[in-house]
């Protein structure tokens, strides 16, 4: 997977590049809008992560010129502007997503995955499987090692979310947002309690753990080693 990162703040470049690299992406960096356009037209990228406020021609303009010349590479905007108008402007230009700084890095990875997945045909249909854990959306049933596990509706929704994004770190905010529609203005630590309850049913009775805490960030569901 090739990512073009357009960002002028070198510290931001450093950590995004490093983080994406560790998540299996190959990253090219452009500091200016003109460089970004040159790279975008000369290479094939799977996704472009584009900062709005860059020197020279800004992110909006880069986006505009890309689309004008028929380059349909998915774009995620990065910005410190969180006004609704800005967000709408970005999406209207054809951006695929919009992330406000500061953001959790795992959030960026998750969004990149989501955008990339969007392009592909839906996989797996209605059945999720991680290791020996199965979630059947149609039957509304959770089974681990052949044993059916009873979950409350919210626990079920939570598990479904984790399984759908298996391998991606989900931040507390993202979980609270996806399940309860609650943004960062709410106490997102409550998510820990919900996770604890879910783990008590999914992981505690089994030796092999599937739900993992990413300290200070959030949770990920995946089969490890």
């Amino acid at each position, binding site marked *: 997977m090739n990512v073009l990162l357009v960002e002028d703040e070198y510290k931001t470049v450093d950590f995004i590049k490093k983080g994406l690299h560790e998540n299996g992406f190959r990253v090219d960096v452009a500091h200016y809008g003109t460089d970004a356009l040159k790279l975008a037209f000369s290479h094939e990228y799977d996704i472009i992560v584009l900062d709005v406020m860059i020197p020279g021609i800004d992110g909006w303009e880069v986006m505009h010129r890309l689309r004008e010349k028929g380059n349909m590479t998915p774009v995620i905007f990065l910005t410190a502007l*969180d006004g*609704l108008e800005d967000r709408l402007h970005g999406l209207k230009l054809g951006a695929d997503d919009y992330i406000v700084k*500061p953001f959790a890095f795992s959030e960026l990875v998750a969004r990149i995955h989501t955008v990339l997945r969007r392009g592909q045909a839906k996989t797996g249909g209605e059945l999720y499987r991680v290791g020996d854990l199965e979630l059947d959306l149609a039957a509304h049933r959770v089974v681990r090692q052949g044993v059916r596990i009873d979950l409350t509706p*919210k626990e079920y929704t939570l598990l479904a979310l984790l399984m759908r994004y298996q391998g991606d770190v989900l931040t507390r905010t993202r979980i*609270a947002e996806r399940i*309860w*529609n*609650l*943004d*960062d*203005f*709410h*106490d997102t*630590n*409550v998510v820990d*309690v*919900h996770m604890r*309850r879910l783990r008590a049913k999914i992981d505690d009775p089994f030796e092999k753990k599937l739900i993992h805490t990413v*300290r*200070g*960030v959030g949770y990920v569901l995946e089969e490890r080693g």
Partner: protein
Amino acid sequence: MSEPQPLKGKPSVSIKNELTTHYVFSFFLILVCTIGLIYWALVAAIKQQGVKHMKDEIMVLQTILNSGDPRALQRKIKTSQEKEFAKLYVRILDRDNRVIVQTPEMDQLLPLPFFHEPVPLEKLNAEGFRQYQANGKAFLVESLWLHVLGAPRIVHIGLDVSSIEQILGVFKGWLVLVMLVGLLASGIVGRYITNRGLRPIDQIAAKSRQITASNLGERFEPHNWPVEMHELTMALDDMLDRLQHSFERLRSYAANLAHELRTPIANLMGEAEVVLTQRRDRDEYERVIESSLEEYQRLSRTIDSLLFLAKADSLEVRLKLEIVRVKEEIHNLEDYYEVSAQGRAFLILCDPDMTVRADVTLFRRALSNLIMNAIKYSPEGGMITVQAERSEGYVEVSVADQGIGIAPEHLEHLFDRFYRVQEAKKLDTRGAGLGLAIVKSIMELHGGAVAISSDPGRGTKVTLTFPAAG
């Protein structure tokens, strides 16, 4: 301190000019009336004097004529004519209007046609005589039937009153002069009095100009000023009270803000510095990085909150109003928070059809804030009551706990930014004290209100009032 800048725009009305104009106008009116009256009285008196003189002369003439002494008559006619002032002109005619004798020059000055039909002495007009202006002179004239030595004669009498007119003319000139001088004097005096009377306003302006942010404690103190300035000085003092209060709040706001931002930064710097002073094992590094993540999140949350409040203040927050189903929202929040309520029970009293027109994200934030507080400050096993009621165009959503309550002196400040009750700080060290301020902003954005009531030791109830949907 800068001099007052000239004001721009439409020329303003000057109270001083207006008052002075009124002064001058009133004074002028009084002056004109007084002087007019005096002049009129004077003219009347002098005319009266002329009439008396004329009557006297007629009497004297009659006596002379009756005495039948022609020399006396001659003398009277001649001497009279030689006088400088009040010259008397006499003409005696027979019944056929033939001149018998007359004062020289009378022909030119007072020819026959000037005189009316003669009247008998008994019918002599007591009120006054006819007056003629001729050749720049003024005369009182009368035509009488008199018996001269038994024969009826027509006597024409003319009294030269030009000197009287002259005196009146001079007098008139003086009066006009007095009037002009009076007018000028009244202008000057009026201006002086106005300036003097309005001096307190200048003094208030001068004092106001000296008040800056550094001496907002200064007051005008109404009792130091004339009664008429009490209203104004009181209003100014009230304004200063409010300004001072706002300034103090702003100052403490800035101090609190610095504190809220510095604390996490201090933690970050300190931890990083300490951990870097020597080699540590991996766990230690991870612990520090995790701790810093928490601090970053805290900073980020504080900034988000401040940004939201600032935007709400400047009305930059655009509400996405929609019909919000209150019970669903309460249940969703209950579902989320219940797990952390640790034995605190929720009691939800809400009509399932209850709706409000609100921005649902902000509605959730407001309600969530109250529920978080209720959980935080409730004892275990306590009941948290979330209730929604409709009353005349409003929907009231309240969250009540059975917690420690809040002392009355804190209640009015609870919605201030960064305001935290000491006891609350011990219970929750993570909050920045912006939660209720945000709730208040949200309610104001919705044209609603938030109210708090508390019974120390028994619990607190916060009520959100939304305008009803539809």
